[in-house]
């Protein structure tokens, strides 16, 4: 089972929910926590993993062999991302624009291009109790989160329960984190901003045809419009968490919700049961 925890709006509690779900289920399940919010990876603050492996991740970019290159310009013409510039007897590669598609290498008629990894992120893996922890961390100033999310998603285990902490928003990075999962848990708050961005996220998930449910965080702030919308769209509100100052204070120092209020562990187990039945409903 692969569950993506997403939200249109940032700061609604994605990481609170995903880490608490992981901690609540790890007592009797094989849980893998994948932090795909690579621009602001914060899951580690709550799970406090022992990191056992660290590697560079990146994009395969062209490295031009100047002894072979005849500056014909075919590579620059083939590049849809303007990552190569050829001018008379000069060739320049802009690694940060390259998407790693290999078109330049394919069109080079003198075999002057080798693809080499340009590191744009760090991959970290470890254990948080019996939770298997993985995160991607985009290097500062690097423009493209999506290829890194894609690389991390290629490492998802086939078995066990996978919880993916997705980036906020509805663009390519969120889609990459959410696509090919079994269920999307949308975390929102019932404020006008929260609801507006939730609607965008719902439309995005619909496009991918994945079953979804809502967690209403800080459920007592704002209005009831969220519930009206959820009812109209036939999306279940699976859990409601009121605004509690002690939860916000715990969050601020890296204490997970289920450690501030241990009774919530049971509720997260119930949440998982609901998700399981929604997924099997969809399969039928």
């Amino acid at each position: 089972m692969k569950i993506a925890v997403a939200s249109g709006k940032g700061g609604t509690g994605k990481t609170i929910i995903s880490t608490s779900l992981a901690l609540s289920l790890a007592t009797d399940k094989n849980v893998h926590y994948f932090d795909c919010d690579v621009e602001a990876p914060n899951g580690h603050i709550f799970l406090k993993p022992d990191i056992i492996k660290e590697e560079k991740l990146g994009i395969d970019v062209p490295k031009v062999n100047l002894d072979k290159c005849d500056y014909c310009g075919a590579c620059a013409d083939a590049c849809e991302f303007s990552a190569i510039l050829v001018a008379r007897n000069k060739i320049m590669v802009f690694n940060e624009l390259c998407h790693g598609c290999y078109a330049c290498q394919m069109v080079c008629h003198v075999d002057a291009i080798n693809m080499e990894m340009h590191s744009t992120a760090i991959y970290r893996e470890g254990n948080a109790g019996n939770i298997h922890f993985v995160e991607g961390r985009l290097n500062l100033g690097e423009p493209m989160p999506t290829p890194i999310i894609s690389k991390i998603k290629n490492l998802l285990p086939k078995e066990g329960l996978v919880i993916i902490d997705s980036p906020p928003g509805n663009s390519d990075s969120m889609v990459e984190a959410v696509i090919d999962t079994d269920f999307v848990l949308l975390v929102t708050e019932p404020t006008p901003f929260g609801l507006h961005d939730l609607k965008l996220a719902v439309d995005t998930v619909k496009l991918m045809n994945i079953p979804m449910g809502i967690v209403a965080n800080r459920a007592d702030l704002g209005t009831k419009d969220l519930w009206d919308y959820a009812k109209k769209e036939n999306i279940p509100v699976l859990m409601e968490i009121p605004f509690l100052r002690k939860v916000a204070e715990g969050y601020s120092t890296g204490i997970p919700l289920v450690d501030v209020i241990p009774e919530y562990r049971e509720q997260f187990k119930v949440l998982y049961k609901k998700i399981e039945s929604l997924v099997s409903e969809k399969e039928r």
Partner: protein
Amino acid sequence: MKELVVVSGKGGTGKTTITASFTYLAKNKVIADCDVDASDMHLITAPDILNTIPFKGRKKAVVNEDKCISCGKCEPACHFDAISDINKINPIKCEGCGVCDLVCPVDAIDMVETIAGDLHISESRYGPMIHARLRIGEENSGQLVTLVRQYAKIMSADRKKELIIIDGPPGTACPTTSAVTGTNLAVVVTEPTLSGLHDLKRVTDVIKHFRVEPVVIVNKYDINKNMTDKIQEYCNEKNIPLLGKIPFDKVVVEAMVAGKSIPEYYNGELTIIIKEIWEKVYKLLTEVN
């Protein structure tokens, strides 16, 4: 003409709430909502859209079924896993690189232009506003952010405005750098949490890398005063001015529900604090080049 950008690193720290308050307090300005992935500023300013301009995205590959001979060459050539079952292209995954087109022996792949978003030129009770929305799943490359800023500059010159206030995106990648580059001042809104501090460090490094001056506001500072002290220490150490601290107050949500910015909605303590911070920001703006 000066440009002020408000960013956060971490999402949900109160960026738009504070930007909306600044735009209410500022005179003679243009508003640019550069959070094109999840823009919310229009929920406060309620703009009248005067003109909408389509934003062209990358081309996408489309298979011409009449020509396709199902040879299977394109599927393994794609580095984005966008092709499956020999010739089915998933438009969400396609990045428009054209490699499939290159390997196709019968020219059965067309690279088709797409619209990736919409840019709006609007008028609001807060003043002229440029805003945009990226369409679902499209690449948030920063190009639409750049376009919003360009239109805001044109608008600002046309209307003889002295300031552009930019509501920036969360994160640290391309949309953020596109929103920050070349501005006169970057206000970072953070919160007193470990996540907030962690992402504050990341985003201020990016801002400095692009040679823009960062200043910091701690929102909801009283949720954890210890963490607020740590943020203060970090700012002192890095020589980043901490311009103000805003307490947690449910009036923020009330104002949002009413569709108003805080100083427009409410004449209390929070408004006084925000006004003081705005005056400091404005003073800094007049001083920087």
